[in-house]
């Protein structure tokens, strides 16, 4: 076993230790906190690179390289519960991505959070999050996975509600926590069922793991009541967890609200890593999802559900993003939509397809979020795109990197990573034998993606700056979050309210991410499907002819066509004719008021949930309250009164019967003692007389005894 596989646990433990040390240090130790957090992430990143290189070295050997290590955790009955970790290409690639993106975001945060009084708390939570996320990645055991998964959920809650003095942030944190909990319930049920079926929660364990063939064969043949294979049922339950975490329909509602957190949090948790954990979960248990009996269709029910959910989410969220005005909300819906693509990719094309989009998306979406953070920071905490405009000339670097991210997300052909990964998904969807509808949904989503991103960039960076001065910077209700924490800005407030470029500590991560947003695409082109081969343990070779194969080429052209349509449409509607004032209605609003209203209000999903689930919950709570207060409470009161009555009775008997007797007894004893002590009169004559009397009495006593 390689050294790094043996010591893989170090990767999550380092940030965990950093988090612990930060937690016990003083609040003012900003430098220490940042150093610890970033230092631990650098180490984790280096170790991740080690792990990655280890898998690279062994790549191409027979099958997928995979090493596991673990230990016994606790025993119940005759069984040991084991915890452990696994090093395989999937783990390695995620490790590098998570630690690298986290590192960059940590560095960015140093600038972004510089003036927040809770700087240390922020880094404590961030490190804890990174530790848990890395734990999720290396886990070789569904239990360890679940534990880390829940810590991820907890830190997400803590970070969304980081500015908890703001009611909307506190509510968003609560919403995120509760919504994901619904999904986690499914995951927990799936986990328990899996344990009941296979007797192990280890993913891989030399043929005894629950994702290995013997367990899968058993689960495939075992049918549940509904005529579904057990593996499918468990897979669907586990998928429910992924739906919650990755913001898929219908549990997507928390993700846009989560943008209440600081922007680095949005970038780290709600774009690059945590939401990807759901996709990663599906990729991890893919063998379970895709398990099917010999000879049956490869598209199992579980994978079909994944596909449909992914496709619907993709188009749904993309359409909502079109009508949003908050810069981060647009990106949030875009994230939901892209996560839908990943699920779609997993459903139709397998692990490599979905994971490729996950990795590329992580980089360009982190880039976009950090870019938006830079914009918000530069515009004095303004988030409404209608109040921006013309930032191109104020913040050139931010603009350049943001444009790269936007083109990558839109899938601009050939040069940007998003194109290659999205293209691969569409390609796989096209070849899906069950239905073509997901493919069409995906194409429509691609068009919408290009459209809304163009709209956003046009509104933010082109035209004239539509907000002036401090007054408007603080007029919006969305911007009052920093009242205490960020009264001044890193770049210095210039007094005229003009936007400014962000400091280097924020710009450098943007540039690095931009580079990766471009380059990463080339590891998974049809001509050189290295990524695919890496994950599946097959060697990959250059084959440029693949690019020009009729099917591939046609699809590429089609997808490029959609992208260009979207870009053009967006530019035509928003770029050419810039809005003059912030209050002007949207172009689409003028053209299609009803549709725009629907989209602006996110299809009223939140309202529907409010009207159904939340209202039902409130009603149930009231009913329970009534029951508790009057029915159970009444019973309790009755019991109380009966008990009280009985105890008064007992008290009565105790005081007037038992105690009285006892007291009399004690009194008698005491008086007897007093009486006897009076015999001790202190006169030695008496004492001696007593001896004489005793002699006589005792002798008489004995003589009397002798006669009888």
């Amino acid at each position: 076993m390689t050294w790094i596989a043996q010591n893989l646990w170090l990767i999550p433990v380092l940030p965990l230790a950093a988090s612990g040390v930060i937690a016990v240090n003083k609040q003012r130790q900003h430098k220490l906190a940042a150093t610890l957090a970033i230092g631990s992430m650098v180490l984790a990143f280096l170790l991740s690179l080690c792990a990655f290189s280890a898998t690279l070295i062994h790549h191409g050997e027979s099958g997928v390289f995979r090493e596991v290590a673990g230990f016994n955790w606790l025993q119940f009955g005759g069984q040991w519960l084991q915890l452990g970790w696994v090093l395989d290409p999937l783990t390695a690639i995620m490790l590098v991505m998570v630690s690298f993106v986290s590192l960059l975001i940590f560095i960015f945060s140093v600038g972004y959070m510089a003036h927040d009084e809770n700087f240390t708390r922020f880094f404590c939570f961030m490190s804890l999050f990174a530790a848990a996320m890395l734990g999720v990645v290396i886990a070789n055991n569904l239990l360890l996975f679940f534990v880390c998964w829940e810590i991820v959920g907890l830190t997400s809650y803590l970070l969304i509600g980081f500015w908890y003095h703001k009611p909307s942030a506190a509510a968003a944190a609560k919403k995120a926590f509760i919504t994901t909990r619904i999904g986690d319930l499914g995951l927990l049920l799936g986990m328990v069922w899996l344990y009941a079926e296979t007797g192990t929660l280890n993913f891989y364990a030399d043929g005894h793991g629950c994702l290995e063939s013997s367990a899968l064969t058993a689960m495939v043949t075992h049918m549940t009541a509904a005529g579904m294979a057990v593996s499918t049922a468990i897979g669907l339950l586990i998928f429910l967890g992924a739906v919650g975490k990755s913001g898929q329909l219908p549990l997507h509602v928390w993700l846009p609200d989560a943008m209440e957190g600081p922007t680095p949090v949005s970038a780290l948790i709600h774009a690059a890593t945590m939401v990807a954990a759901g996709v990663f979960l599906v990729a991890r248990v893919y063998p379970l999802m895709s398990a099917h009996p010999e000879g049956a269709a490869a598209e199992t029910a579980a994978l079909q559900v994944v596909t449909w959910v992914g496709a619907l989410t993709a188009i749904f969220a993309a359409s909502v993003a079109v009508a949003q005005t908050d810069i981060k909300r647009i990106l949030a819906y875009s994230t939901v939509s892209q996560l839908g693509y990943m699920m779609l990719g997993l459903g139709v094309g397998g692990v490599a397809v979905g994971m490729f989009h996950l990795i590329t998306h992580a980089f360009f979406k982190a880039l976009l979020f950090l870019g938006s953070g830079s914009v918000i920071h530069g515009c004095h905490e303004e988030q409404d795109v209608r109040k921006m405009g013309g930032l191109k000339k104020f913040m050139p670097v931010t603009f350049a990197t943001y444009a790269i991210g936007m083109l990558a997300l839109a899938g601009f052909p050939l040069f940007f990573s998003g194109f290659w990964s999205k293209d691969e998904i569409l390609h796989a969807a096209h070849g899906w034998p069950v239905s073509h509808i997901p493919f069409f949904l995906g194409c429509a989503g691609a068009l919408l993606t290009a459209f809304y991103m163009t709209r956003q960039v046009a509104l933010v960076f082109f035209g004239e700056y539509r907000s002036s001065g401090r007054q408007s910077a603080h007029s919006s209700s969305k911007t009052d979050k920093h009242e205490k924490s960020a009264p001044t800005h890193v770049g210095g407030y210039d007094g005229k309210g003009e936007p400014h470029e962000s400091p280097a500590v924020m710009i450098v991560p943007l540039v690095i991410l931009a580079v990766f947003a471009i380059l990463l695409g080339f590891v998974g082109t049809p001509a050189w499907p290295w990524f695919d081969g890496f994950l599946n343990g097959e060697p990959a070779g250059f084959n440029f002819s693949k690019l020009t194969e009729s099917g591939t080429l046609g699809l590429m052209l089609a997808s490029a066509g959609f992208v260009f349509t979207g870009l053009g449409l967006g530019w035509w509607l928003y770029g050419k004719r810039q809005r003059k004032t912030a209050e002007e209605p949207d172009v689409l609003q003028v053209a299609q008021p009803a549709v725009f209203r629907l989209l602006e209000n996110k299809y009223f999903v939140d309202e529907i949930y409010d009207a159904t689930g939340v209202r039902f919950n409130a009603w149930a709570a009231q009913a329970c309250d009534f029951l508790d207060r009057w029915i159970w409470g009444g019973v309790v009161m009755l019991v109380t009164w009966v008990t009280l009555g009985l105890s008064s009775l007992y008290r009565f008997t105790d005081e007037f019967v038992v105690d009285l007797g006892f007291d009399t007894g004690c009194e008698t004893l005491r008086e007897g003692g007093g009486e006897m002590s009076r015999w001790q009169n202190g006169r030695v004559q008496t004492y001696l007389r007593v001896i004489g009397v005793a002699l006589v009495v005792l002798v008489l006593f004995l003589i009397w005894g002798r006669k009888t």
Partner: protein
Amino acid sequence: MNYLQVLQLAAPEAALAITVLMVLAVDLIALRGKSVARRFGTGAMVSIVGCLMAAVFTFTHYGTTDPLHGLLVVDPLTNFLKVVLLILTIFTVLISASGKFTEHVGEYLALVLLATIGLMFLVSAEDILMIFISLELASLSLYILTAFNKHNAKSSEAALKYFLFGGMSAAFLLFGLSLLYGLSGSTNLSQIAAGLAGRGLDPLLLVAIVTTVIGFGFKVAAVPFHLWAPDAYEGAPTPSAAFIASGSKVASFYILAKILTMGFAGAEGSAVWQGYVSGWTPVITVVAALSMVLGNLTAIVQSSVKRLLAYSAIAHAGYMLLGVLANTPSSRSALLFYVITYALTVLGAFGVVTVVEAATGGDAISNFAGLSRRAPGLSLCLLVFLLSLAGIPPLAGFIGKFFLFSAAVGADAEHLGLLWLVVLAIVMSAVSFYYYLQVLKQAWVLDAAENAPAIKVPPVTMVALVLLAVLVILLGCAPGLLTRHL
């Protein structure tokens, strides 16, 4: 049998006698003009070394030897009891060592050791003459020890009462013993029993029984021969009282049981419920019952802790007489277990009283108020000792009572004849909780007087008390450590 052999047999006692002389000599010659504390320290050291030497000498004899026909019987049990007596003496010396009640340090320590010698000879004796002589050696030493606090008139008064009462009962004892000699023609206990056999219950024998019981009833402070005890305990310097209550008790109970079971074998009689037959058991029964009732009830109303301990000693003597009564091998070991653990416990209790008396100037129960805040370690020891006296598990007092009572019930298991006495004992020990807890309530619940300073416990005393407390807990948890020797 030459004298050298006798001297060898009596090596522990001889060593102790030499120690007595050395203590006197050191105090007189080397320590003249030094402070009392210094003299007490050195003298105590010499005494303890002597006791340890004597204890070592007891280990030179294994097996049973009786070369003088009962004058000096050495067997494993008597050796063990001598070691116990020496340990009790060491603790007494330790408790005394920080005392300020006398300037006559050498004499005090010498008398303690002399009393110990008397007690050691007593446990070895199976001859009424030897018994009487060693008893007198011990008693006379104890009378003087009682009188040792010359600043206190009560001490002299108590000593005088003790002496008069002791002299009177010694006279009765001697009278009884002479009757025994006249009846049997021998002074050896087993030969007396043989001589008395088959002669029935002669009235003279009955008188001899009663006078013997009087003689030892005085030593163990059993009702109605207890009258000296409260006065003596209260008036005597506390360490002296501790020694009277501990070492003297152990030896006296052992020898009382021996005389009654060996010398009056065949004249037991019966004290079972509705089956009264004349003999020594009915006498002991009456004395035991009276002791338990009177001791416990009178202790309730005491306001002086030393008097309280005196009455509790009377009550305990009552319980221990049950072990004499039962007259079986298991009851004898139960009796010895009880008396030894009782001696250790009461020694500790008196030790605590010594410290409190020195610090507060009195031994009234109210002087113990707030002790737990003024001297936490001391009050913890007090807690252990008093709860052990009350018989709370897992302390030695509980297991001792358990052995004793079960042995008493087991002695006549078929008819449950002694059950009535055991029931009385249990009821009375329930009563005893009241007065022990009175003291503990003062120490642990009530507050000390305003501005009461912390009590400084002399380190030596503290060590001795902690050791005693540990022993009490240890013997309660692992009684086998002791019972296998008995």
